[in-house]
Structure formats: structure tokens, C-alpha cells
């Protein structure tokens, strides 16, 4: 036992495991409907025939937001709200082939340029705008009127020396985009 104790002390002192000073901290937790801001609740109440509604709170060091995930007309929706319950955007999960052909081909050309091989893992169409315009998405299905539209795409991208997941956010009109690499959560406790 003494041997183990000595080794453990040596082990802990040999490796400087002090955490870095500025950590990015985010936490998503499932919450009850009663914990949601009234405005957000009211918005969701106005959507007819939705199902599988789940609420989440997303916290970071600087902000808190709320997200509702549900199914509406057989599609997966995600609606994000500010801390006060003001709607920020609506995201609708889509299949890659459902995307307008010319838009799809233009985006594919960008992926071909950035990756030696690619595979689209997930596509969400994101709408943002006024509260009234967003509610029309659900009531009369008039998407695109007075709304900003973006495509949020998760792509598996093979480059020369690595394979990574990227999140692209494309503007619908100009197809200008922002790309960010998705960093996986640490998994050493699952591997060793």
C-alpha cells in the first residue's frame, strides 16, 4: 500500500494539471414548461398541433437562453428565445435533397473547394425576424416573407491530414458563409 501512496503522490506532482485561467463554460439542461419565460410559453401555445415538446435552458458565463424542441407537421422544429422570452429564431430540420437544387449545387461547390471529400450530416433552415412574421411560419406556412433565412449545415469534411465536423451557416441570398470546426467533448473516460 505504501508503494501505491508514494507513486500516487509522485504522479500527481509530476504532472501540472492546473486548469487554464479562462475557460469557456456552457451548460444545457432540460427544464419544465413552468420554468420557461411567459412570452416564450405564449409563443409556443399559439402553435397548433405540435407534439413531443421539450424545453431546454442554455447557460453560459455571459448569457442565458431558452430553446423549445418539438415536432410539427412531421418535421423537427427548434425555437430559440432570449432570457426574457423574446423569440430569436426558428430552425427546421430538413433532408439535404429537399433543398432548392441551385442552392444545393452552389453550396456543394463550396464544400468541394474546402474538402477533399465531404458528407452532409445535418441541415437546418433557420428563420429570424419579427415575432409576427415567425408565427406565420406555423399558421399559414408562409415561409420567407419578411424573414431572414439561413442554412445551418453540419458537414463531415475530409482534408489532407484529418477528418473533422464543421458547422456552416449560409446566408440564403448571397450564400456568404461562416464556418466553424466542431470540437468534440473529451472522451478519455470512455476510451481508457
Amino acid at each position, binding site marked *: 500500500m505504501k508503494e501505491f501512496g508514494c507513486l500516487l503522490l509522485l*504522479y500527481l506532482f509530476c504532472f501540472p494539471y492546473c486548469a487554464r485561467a479562462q475557460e469557456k*463554460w456552457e451548460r444545457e439542461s432540460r427544464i419544465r414548461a413552468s420554468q420557461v419565460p411567459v412570452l416564450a410559453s405564449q409563443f409556443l401555445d399559439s402553435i397548433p398541433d405540435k407534439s413531443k415538446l421539450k424545453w431546454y435552458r442554455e447557460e453560459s458565463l455571459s448569457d442565458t437562453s431558452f430553446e423549445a424542441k418539438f415536432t410539427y407537421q412531421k418535421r423537427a422544429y427548434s425555437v430559440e428565445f432570449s432570457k426574457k422570452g423574446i423569440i430569436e429564431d426558428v430552425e427546421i430540420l430538413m433532408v439535404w435533397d429537399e433543398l432548392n437544387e441551385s442552392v444545393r449545387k452552389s453550396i456543394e461547390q463550396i464544400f468541394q473547394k474546402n474538402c477533399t471529400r465531404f458528407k452532409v450530416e445535418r441541415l437546418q433552415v433557420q428563420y429570424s425576424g419579427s415575432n409576427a412574421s415567425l408565427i406565420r411560419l406555423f399558421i399559414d406556412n408562409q415561409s420567407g416573407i419578411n424573414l431572414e433565412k439561413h442554412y445551418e449545415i453540419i458537414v463531415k469534411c475530409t482534408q489532407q491530414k484529418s477528418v473533422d465536423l464543421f458547422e456552416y451557416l449560409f446566408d440564403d441570398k448571397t450564400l456568404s458563409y461562416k464556418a466553424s470546426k466542431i470540437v468534440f467533448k473529451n472522451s478519455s473516460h470512455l476510451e481508457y
Partner: protein
Amino acid sequence: MSTKFILKLLFGAVILPVATGFAQPEYRVGALPAVNLNIKLKRNWSINSRIESRQQFESGIHGVESIREYDYLLTDVSLQVARKVGLNGRVGGGYLLRFGSGELAHRFIQQYAFVQKKSGYRLAHRVMTDQTISNLEDLELRFRYRLTLEVPFNGEAVDPGEFYFKVSNEFVNSLQTNIYDLENRFVPLIGYETRKKFKIETGLDYRVDGFFNQSTRHSYWYSLNFFFEI
């Protein structure tokens, strides 16, 4: 793969060996404290080192005799170098030194692990081979497969400051002097991730071995793991 299927697979893998194992009810009870350090390097490389001690508090034969006595059994110190392959896989190899109770063993390890992120949980697969030489025993060759399920207590993924449940089942096939044996390890743990890249896990590490040589043994270890990440 549905969650139900995974749970069935995990429990099926455990119940069957336990049921067959009751014929020869030798047992031991103890603790397995471990400290694990993972260091990320450039270009997808990483180093993992681990120190684990095994201490026994009780042993005997179910219903016949039991000996309550503290016994320090061994300590393992290991170092592995690994490289990320593909999107979420890792290939690694390393060396483990085991000592205690007059034994000094050297183990060479090769492993491949990959992690699948699903909605609300993560699944990890690990395939491992190792070769052990020791001053007391003949060469032992092992082939292992482990399936691990991680489920956060809240939300879609484990975030800093949150608890999680981790359960794994591993089949350890071994060959020593032409004698084959199978060991099954079932490990349910509760874990907590702090805000500073540190995790602590505690729970049971249940092992049953000796299926094929008429000496089935059940081991119940209290497991306490510390994970540090740099």
C-alpha cells in the same frame, strides 16, 4: 441502435455469465482507486497515463467461508500513446507495469476506440489486445471488447458541473499455456464533471471469471476514478 437495444445487450451480457457463475461461488471484495491523466498533443496525438491500485477487504466461498482481512494486492502504472483516426476514432499502444505481492509483470497494449454521439447519450466501443509477461506466470494473451454507455443526468450532453451515469460491459478473452478463459466485467458508475477538465466517477466494478476451468470467481470492487485532462 436504440437505447433499449443497448441496455438489453449490456444486461444480457451480464446476467448470463452471473447465472452460470453461481455453481462455483468463490468471491472477493475490495477497492480499485485509479487516477487517469490525459494530455492532448499537436497533430491529433495524445498521451494517457494511469495509476490504479487493487486492495482486498474480504474473500472466500459463498456460503462456506469468508475471510475479512485487508490485503494490498497490486498497483498498475500504464502509459499509452494514441492518435485520432477518422472522425471519432483513436488508435493507441502502450505499456503497463504491474507490481505487488512479489509479482512484477510487463504488459504491452494495443487498442482502437471510437465514440458515437447520439441524441441524449454517447456510446464508446473499445477493442484491445494485450500481452503480459511476468516473473510468476507464463505469457498471457488477451483479446477484449468493451461497450460503454454514457448518459447525462440532464440535457443532451454532459456539461461542466453536471452528473452523468456510465455503464460498461467488457468481455476479456485470455489464453495462457493453451488454456482459454473468459472474464466478464460489468461496471456501472456515477460520474461528475467539474468546470476545470476534471471528472470523478464512483460505483461498482463487478467481474466474473473462470467460466471454463471449474473455478468461477466473482469480484466486487469499489471503483473510484479520477480523470484529469490537459
